[in-house]
């Protein structure tokens, strides 16, 4: 039973180094020792079958891999730049839309605030005496000689036209 297990372990170690305990067992057991010798012969036989690339194959493979990597890198760069050219306008559109949507309420709020402030600051009720004084001052100054004021505003051509077509005294 022990040898069966050991031989199973020996199979797993074909082509490998033996542990000290296994070597110890082989030195004491003819059956296992002969089994191991057989595995060494098999191992030596199989080693001749080990795979080796020829020089031309190695060169060709290396070159193909270099070319393949270069090609994939170019494709990757193109794909990235293609994505960028597609994404930039989309991103800009999204930003614009979100920007406007986000700005609208702000703007409305600002406008409302300005209006409220303006109404509040502009609105005040003057005293009655003050109004009277202002009216009297304005009337006395601006309309003391209304005809002069009016005629003074007219150009020579307009005055000539009025003289020709209307009786200015009646109008005044």
């Amino acid at each position, binding site marked *: 039973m022990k040898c069966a297990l050991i031989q*199973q372990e020996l*199979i*797993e170690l*074909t*082509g*490998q180094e033996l542990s000290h305990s296994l070597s110890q067992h082989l030195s004491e057991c003819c059956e296992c020792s*002969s089994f191991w*010798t*057989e*595995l*060494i*012969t*098999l*191992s030596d*036989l*199989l080693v*001749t*079958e*080990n*795979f*080796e*690339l*020829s020089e031309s*194959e*190695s060169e*060709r*493979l*290396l070159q*193909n*891999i*270099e070319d*393949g*990597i270069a090609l*994939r890198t170019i494709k990757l760069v193109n794909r990235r730049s293609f994505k960028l050219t597609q994404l930039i306008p989309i991103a800009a559109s999204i930003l614009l839309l979100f920007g406007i949507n986000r700005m609208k309420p702000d703007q409305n709020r600002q406008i409302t605030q300005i209006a409220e402030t303006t109404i509040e600051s502009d609105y005040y009720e003057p005293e009655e005496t003050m109004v009277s004084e202002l009216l009297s001052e304005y009337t006395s100054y601006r309309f003391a000689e209304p005809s002069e004021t009016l005629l003074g505003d007219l150009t020579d051509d307009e005055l000539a036209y009025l003289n020709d077509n209307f009786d200015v005294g009646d109008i005044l």
Partner: protein
Amino acid sequence: MAQESNDRIARLVEQAKRGDREAFSEIVKLVMNRVVALTYRITGNRETALDLAQDTLITAWERLEQFRGESSFLSWLMRIATNRSLNHLSRAVTVREQGVDPVTVEQISVSTSSNPEKELEGVELQQSVQSFMSKLPTQQRIAFELRFYQQFSFDEIAGVTGKALGTVKTNYRESIKKLRVWMKDKGHHS
């Protein structure tokens, strides 16, 4: 020696991850023979094996950022190679249909030797081994290639193939048992 090689590959991988293509070329030079050996053992055709190895190494470059170093780089690479080769097999070609790879024979026959008789014997033996190996089930071939030729641990092979440790060990043992029988049938005794 193997550890030294692994350390060197690990350093080169770090450089390659930063976009250093020359470092990756160095890695390719170090590992390509082993990758082709595996793809060849799975497919049984040299040209297909070269194509699959090429595909594996280009894919490795593309996915280098995904390699987190949880296994060795070689194990990670072998996993890609195994998956590619198995996909290839499942798509169309079976090893049994292809038989002995003529390129292998051609390559050996053109090489010069001081002992042509011995060389011919070697060629015949090699053909015979390859022919027999191609008849092994795929998972046994993979386990055998990775364990015997590439010196992977069973744990690593389990990681590469995605199979349980026990299954991997069984596959390897079965391949050895069959090869022992083949060796006796061919009259190769110790």
